[in-house]
């Protein structure tokens, strides 16, 4: 690379890209210069002085403007008279850095002695204890004692609610401003600031409602001490007692990688999720999560989880055995002349595939996606989606991002953070078009407006110069982010089609960072669609009339076909379950493994973190048991085997398998748990970073489409809000005041 800069750190030669800060350069050769305020995801501020090092540059002869060499021909280094912060100083050619000298270690001792003057040292009851940079660095570099008088310790409030999700302990805060900078520079919700100066400096908020941000939990992760804790995890467990399993959030199309921290609950005696943490994936969520993904998990251990199969007898649902329930379902299916499966878009690919396979064996079997509307455009979103090599972090100067009819912060929160950075930090041009205001409007170079429901008409007719073929052709890449809010099936597909047309006209097809990016309702809309799309078609389930319907994870009652006999696989006694003939208790994503396909077509594995609840079983198991009773010779022992079958049947997934999906890559910056260097309690990616399957711009649309569209004529996309009520969020105590 042309832009490499050479320097030495403690005599060791390093070459790093121009602009790299000394701390990061040192990290590449495993030299951990201690830091508190510096965080590789935030702009450096040099506030804590922990990273002081000796810095020198080649001595120049002022007369000859040549580098001075000693008699042995070695370049003479001019050392700066004072120590300097490694976190704010970029490397330069020939620079020399000393990190292990007495002056440096004295400085580290002194800084720690100051930081601890008023620190309460309550590690034994601190949530961060065990994963705390202050603890670790004090052990490694601290003075061991203090010259400050104990009586002069300043005492501050220890339980300050900054909102109902995050608490501040003022004594523990070391004023590093990471939380403030996260809120200012990444979330753009300026709800935290410093107040006063010197020894009186403290974090304050005037936010109303408290900590008004969808991303507040991240501040607790990156706080280098135990000053910010979440209402959810506060005093619940010590970090070293927690089990951890890689997982994937299924609440929106982003597909954030998570780690589920679990432990036996002492009161209930059952294993439960204690916290949901980000699992680093620089391609997906980096090290962030939204608060929904972080705090909604409580439904997995809600007291009203279905534990046993139920069948309807004399008008009542009564408990039964799996044996009887499965016998009943298989006999009904055998006798049925028409069958439908409706599959919710948070159901794993494996379950969707097996149920689809079973239903398709019926000559009149139909499979449908729920919610249904995305099926009207998901084929276009897939075939004209971003390229295999798509990397949101590469979007910047020269690129055009167009957001049409979507509210990215509400509908795909972590994409909001990342798209915003592409625009604000890296100079991508943002065009926003909507019938209402959204937070992304703040950064738009160009704003267009249309009447509610008229997105497609707007896109078809706009003579906006910013969207002209000429402008879009000039762009390095064009990314169309779009949603279906207030659109019916015809206009939702119409919108996608027009956007495809623009991509084609501008020659923006087949590039990694150009294409469509859909704002789907949940975490596996694309996956379930991919599976049902190839079968007898995938329109509106509400218009079907069948003998037997099997509904898995379906929330919306209008997605239920008219059926003589209905089977519902569910976690809870939902509206649809309560009117079913058979109710099968399902496992939540945390109690089993499987895969989801994100909105940008990344297929990702999630793993089992908790034991089953009662007699609940994974949906694929129930489907297979029914199939066997119907005479199929199926012997899928695990989701991995089902996935292999899926990959053999759904062409887009060919070549994929559990092994490749579990592959990881080393992530930069290293912010994972085993490497506490930069601080932050997120996890390294140990479960696989997933694989994006290729789009296929040569197929434009399935022939069944027009019929499908008519079947959806009465559907309209809702205005989805992040905290809108639902079966899952309503079972999370900590989220109660946020639910809309």
């Amino acid at each position, binding site marked *: 690379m042309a832009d490499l800069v050479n320097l030495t750190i403690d005599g060791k030669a390093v070459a790093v890209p121009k602009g790299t800060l000394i701390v990061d350069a040192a990290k590449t050769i495993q030299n951990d210069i201690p830091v508190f305020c510096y965080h590789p995801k935030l702009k450096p501020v040099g506030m804590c002085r922990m990273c002081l090092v000796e810095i020198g540059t080649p001595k120049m002869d002022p007369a000859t403007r040549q580098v001075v060499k000693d008699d042995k021909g070695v370049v003479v280094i001019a050392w700066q008279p004072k120590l300097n912060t490694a976190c704010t100083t970029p490397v330069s050619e020939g620079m020399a850095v000393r990190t292990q000298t007495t002056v440096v270690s004295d400085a580290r001792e002194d800084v720690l002695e100051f930081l601890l003057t008023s620190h309460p040292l309550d590690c034994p009851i601190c949530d961060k204890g065990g994963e705390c940079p202050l603890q670790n660095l004090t052990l490694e570099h601290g003075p061991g004692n203090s010259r400050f008088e104990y009586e002069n310790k300043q005492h501050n409030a220890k339980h300050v609610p900054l909102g109902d999700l995050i608490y501040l302990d003022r004594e523990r805060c070391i004023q590093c401003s990471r939380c403030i900078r996260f809120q200012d520079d990444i979330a753009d*919700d300026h709800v935290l600031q410093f*107040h006063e*100066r*010197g020894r009186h400096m403290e974090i304050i908020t*005037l*936010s109303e409602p408290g900590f008004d941000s969808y991303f507040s939990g991240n501040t607790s992760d990156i706080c280098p001490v135990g000053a910010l804790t979440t209402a959810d995890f506060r005093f619940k467990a010590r970090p070293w007692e927690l089990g951890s399993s890689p997982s994937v959030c299924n609440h929106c199309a982003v597909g954030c990688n998570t780690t589920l921290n679990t432990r036996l609950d002492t009161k209930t005696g059952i294993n439960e999720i204690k916290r949901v943490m980000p699992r680093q994936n620089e391609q997906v969520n980096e090290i962030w999560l939204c608060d929904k993904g972080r705090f909604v998990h409580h439904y997995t251990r809600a007291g009203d989880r279905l534990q046993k199969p139920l069948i309807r007898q004399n008008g009542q649902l009564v408990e039964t055995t799996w044996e009887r329930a499965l016998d009943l379902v298989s006999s009904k299916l055998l006798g049925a002349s028409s069958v439908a499966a409706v599959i919710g878009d948070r159901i794993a690919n494996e379950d969707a595939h097996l149920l689809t396979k079973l239903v398709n064996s019926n000559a009149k079997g139909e499979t449908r996606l729920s919610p249904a509307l995305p099926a009207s455009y998901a084929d276009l979103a897939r075939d004209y989606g971003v390229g295999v090599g798509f990397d949101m972090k590469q979007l910047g100067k020269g690129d055009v991002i167009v957001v049409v009819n979507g509210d990215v912060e509400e509908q795909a929160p972590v994409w909001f953070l990342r798209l915003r950075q592409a625009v604000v930090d890296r100079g991508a041009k943002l065009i926003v078009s909507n019938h209402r205001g959204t937070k992304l409007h703040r950064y738009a170079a160009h704003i267009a407006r249309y009447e509610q429901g008229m997105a497609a008409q707007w896109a078809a007719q706009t003579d906006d110069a910013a969207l002209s073929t000429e402008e879009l052709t000039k762009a390095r890449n064009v990314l169309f982010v779009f949603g279906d809010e207030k659109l019916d099936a015809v206009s939702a597909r119409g919108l996608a089609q027009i956007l495809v047309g623009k991509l084609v006209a501008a020659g923006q097809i087949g590039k990694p960072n150009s294409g469509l990016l859909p704002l789907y309702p949940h975490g596996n809309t694309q996956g379930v669609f991919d599976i049902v799309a190839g079968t007898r078609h995938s329109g509106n389930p509400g218009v079907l009339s069948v003998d037997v319907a099997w509904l898995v994870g379906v929330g919306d009652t209008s997605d239920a076909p008219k059926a003589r006999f209905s089977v519902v696989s569910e976690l809870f006694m939902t509206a649809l379950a309560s009117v079913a003939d058979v109710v099968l208790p399902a496992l939540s994503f945390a109690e089993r493994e499987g895969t989801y396909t994100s909105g940008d077509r990344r297929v990702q594995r999630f793993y089992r973190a908790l034991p089953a609840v009662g007699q609940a079983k994974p949906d694929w198991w129930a489907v297979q048991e029914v199939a066997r009773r119907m005479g199929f010779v199926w012997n899928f022992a695990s989701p991995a085997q089902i996935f292999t079958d899926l990959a053999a049947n759904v062409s887009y997934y060919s070549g994929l398998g559990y092994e490749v999906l579990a592959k990881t890559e080393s992530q930069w910056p290293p912010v994972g748990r085993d490497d506490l260097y930069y601080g932050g309690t997120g996890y390294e990616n140990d479960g696989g970073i997933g694989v994006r399957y290729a789009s296929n711009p040569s197929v434009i649309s399935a022939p069944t489409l027009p019929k499908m569209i008519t079947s959806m004529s009465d559907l309209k996309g809702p205005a989805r809000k992040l905290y809108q009520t639902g079966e899952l969020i309503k079972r999370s105590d900590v989220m109660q005041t946020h639910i809309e």
Partner: protein
Amino acid sequence: MLKDKYKDRIAAIFAKYPPERKRSAVMPLLDIAQEEYGYCTEEAMREVAELCGIDPTEVKSVVGFYTMYYEKKVGKYVIDVCDDLPCVLRGADKFVNYCEQKLGIKAGETTPDGKITLNVVMCLAACDRAPMCQVNTAYHYDLTPDKFDKLVIELKKG
């Protein structure tokens, strides 16, 4: 509401800044707020935030940083004594103790008659003549208990 009562002054302030830099007006607007209410009330901070298009938390942060913005009711006269290191080397800490004793209040408090507030503040840029203080906008140098007694008599009159 400031925005109605001081409409013209506010407009004149905003005219000094480019329209996309409205946040730059936060300090002059806080001056108006303090003039109106005697100190920066939370309501006033929210009002200023709205006028400048920033978050109220950011306004409070500004108020907290500068010692001449007050967050609670102050006396007619505010005595700010600098107790930064150079001033302390010249006896400012003992001087503050004397002031507290003389006024019968602690630093940060106001006399019961509402006349005088005593504050200790950061650098007032006059350490060469410490102990020193600022009374509202006027500086007083080379202070002694004697001089302070006289100063207090003057202030209590006014």
